[in-house]
């Protein structure tokens, strides 16, 4: 069963290194390829928080403002642990896979009670 993971890393390189370490992507003869269970890796990059504004002639008045970090989406049939790099934008996602709802992502751990301190601290227990 394919699962969609949405992640946000401090930098692009950190993201790629993490994917290599996790075995999502492989380096074969100097080329980066998908692992067998990987259906897609999408390097989204920076996500716009506030769009740019323009004057009447189309010139930029204020440039766009981006969220921190570098976003990468992964579709895989493997259970993957992205730790605190995993994010859960749900219907506010900036990217989706064609034919899938934009909120089609591995959901965050549900808070069963107050003993669960935070979503981030419960990353290793995923609900599929």
């Amino acid at each position, binding site marked *: 069963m394919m699962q969609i993971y949405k992640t946000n890393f401090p930098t692009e390189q950190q993201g790629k290194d993490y994917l290599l370490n996790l075995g999502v992507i492989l380096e074969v003869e100097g080329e980066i390829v998908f692992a067998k269970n990987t259906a897609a890796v999408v390097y989204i990059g920076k996500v716009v928080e506030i769009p740019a504004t323009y004057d009447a002639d189309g010139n930029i008045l204020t440039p766009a403002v981006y969220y921190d970090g570098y976003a990468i989406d992964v579709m895989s049939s493997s259970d993957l642990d992205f730790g605190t790099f995993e994010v859960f934008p749900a219907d506010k996602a900036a990217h*989706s896979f064609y034919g899938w709802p934009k909120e089609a992502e591995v959901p965050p751990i549900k808070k069963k009670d107050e003993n669960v301190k935070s979503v981030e601290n419960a990353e290793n227990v995923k609900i599929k």
Partner: protein
Amino acid sequence: MSNLLDQASIVLTPTAYDNGKVLCAKPTDGSGDFDFSRNSAATRVNAQGLVEDVQILSSNLVQNGDFSQTGSEEVTNGSFANGNADWTIENTWTIGEGVANGNGANGSTAELKQTSVNTIGKSYKATFKVLNYVSGSVGFFRGSGIGVTPRTADGVYTEYFTATSSEIRFRGSNFNGSITNISVKEVGQNWFKDANWSIGDNVATSTGAGRMFQSISALEGNIGTKVKVSFNITEVTSGGVKVDCYGATSAVITEVGTHTFTGTTTNTLNLYINNSGTGNLVGSITNISVIEITDDTNLPRINYEGFSFQDALGSELVLNGDFATNSDWNLGGSDTPIIENGFLKFGISNGTYSRARQNNASIIGNCKVTYTVVNSSASTLAIREYAGGNNESVPATIGTHTIYKNFIANGISFQAGGVDGGILEIDNISVREVLGQEVVPDSGCGNWLWEPQSTNIITYSEDFTNSSWTKFNSSITNDNTKILGINALKIVPDNNLKGILKRPATTPQDGLVYNRSVYIKFGGERYVVLSAQDALSSSRSVIFDFTNKDFSYQGGSVSNLLAADMGNEIFRISFNSISSGSVIDDYSIGFSSDGTSTSSFLGNGVDGVYATATQVEQQSYATSYIPTDGTSVTRNQDLCTNGGSAASINITEGVLYAEIAALANDGTVRYLGLSDGSTNNRVIILYYSATNKVRAIVSSGGTKYVDVNYELTNILDFHKVAIKYKLNDFAFWIDGVEVATDTSLNAPIVLDDLSFSIGGSSPFFGKTKAVAVWKETLTDTELAELTTI
């Protein structure tokens, strides 16, 4: 060729597939079928030339959803060709010379009627022609309690009615004139209607409470089917429309326009319009469509291209072009022609002139004129525009002739005579406006389309009304135009202003090549400007000329510029530019006044361009369209592997054949062939880093014995490629020519897999019309035949 394929152990053609499977024509037991994965939806161009999501499984399941279907003729002797046969007439009517004549008197009901025409409760479309009108009125009786609409002038009239009896009747009131060509045909077939519904001119009209419904057999026994339902409300006085498609329901919609919803069927009932007291529409609806869709994300794509085109024609503009009646044509000249026995007949005396004309305001603009000369001893015939337009000589020889003529006056005249004698008989005159060019359905050729993963970073690829598109001095209008089946909006620059539409800020990777593409259709402005901010200059613009179908540039040329002509003034424009992270506003659609400048343009508030399917992707070429609606969207890579088997592949000798085309000269390695799942044992064809080159490799036991390549004119075109392999006997054939041989070959040790990759790596992204494998080598003659284009 067919005999050769009979001998093959594996044959793959673009014919059959299932979710997750690409099915071979041979072997037929399924042992050779391929596994296929993509795990996302994708679009293709279907056999009708339309862009569609492959998850759409069906055509429109609704029958007669646009209410345009008409049945067979129900009236007998409607042209009175057989006198008064089949008609019952009161004494105010007389029948003769193909018409029923009213004498101006008033009878009891003054009826002209025919029995056993209608089926009570069914809907019909009645047409009749009034001619030779002098006075009084005549009208068609649509049923008790429904007023007869009096007709008081010559003309062809149409009325829709729901039958309350089996008779049809015409009622005159001191009518002095004639009627003929009476026709009644059933409409609204396939629909069951309560009394409030009636069928009109390609619409269904409701007067309040009550339902209309239809049974769809494909949905009867398939609860849980995902459906996409759409309909067009054309008029609302009060109430609204609620559609219930086997349990998948819409809200009550009260607004005029096209509406679409998706849902899942939950029962086995019917497709209802306003069931169970809902909606209560006072208004009209049409274009009701139900399409079955699936959540399957591993559906291979058979993509069609190479279509033929034909004229897209408007409706018939000539009346009585088959000369069924002696009417509609104004016959004159010193040697006046006649209409007789279904033909227009000129008897031409030397030095005389005769003509048959129609003064018809609709005959104007670029038209296609066809006519058939059935008998001729004349050498001259001309078509002239009425009201003093241009005269043009046209063929007078026996046969059907077609000419194209730009009519600037209102009407057409066929003229004969002047220089020679003889006779000339004409039939089946047709004049139809040429609206453009359209795809001839099923004229294209299908191929398997395997593409790499790609992401469209335009977040609203079709909806330019969204605020993420910035409209400078321009407006967006929607007149329901479609481009290849996709909704298209019109970008209209404001009057006396330089209008432009710009994409929102996005995040392309600095310094990488991005391809930008868009489907456009002529909307009144000749020059359309597509601009990209580019790392090589502050702005690069492509100015496309709809008239000459060519380009000019501003800010430097762009790479890989293509304009795919899709017919009917539709083009897919695509080009590459290198993104600059410091300039993020990198996509806009504007206009030019002269085809060279982008600064001097001023709009008129009316003309513009239709556009849709905007796409920006990190590729060096445009891939298939990826629709977006609020996010960037990724279509995953196509992966077709694990075909064939040890039983259908011979390790000691054989032939691998493929008819393939590349998607691009992008320098990537793309494998297709036989292997053991590794590069140790393989017989493969590949595209690679060299431009326009195709390559063949044979390895055995980890040793590469043959590695040859050949330069093609263009790898984007289809080529037929074959590898013959056997101990000390290798040959590489392309397009009927043996381009390489080798006599030191060791045959592979293990070959049990036919894939569009090797072990899932370096997938073959390209187009494939055929792949075949033989377990024995073929002769040079056979290989030449096999690979000749």
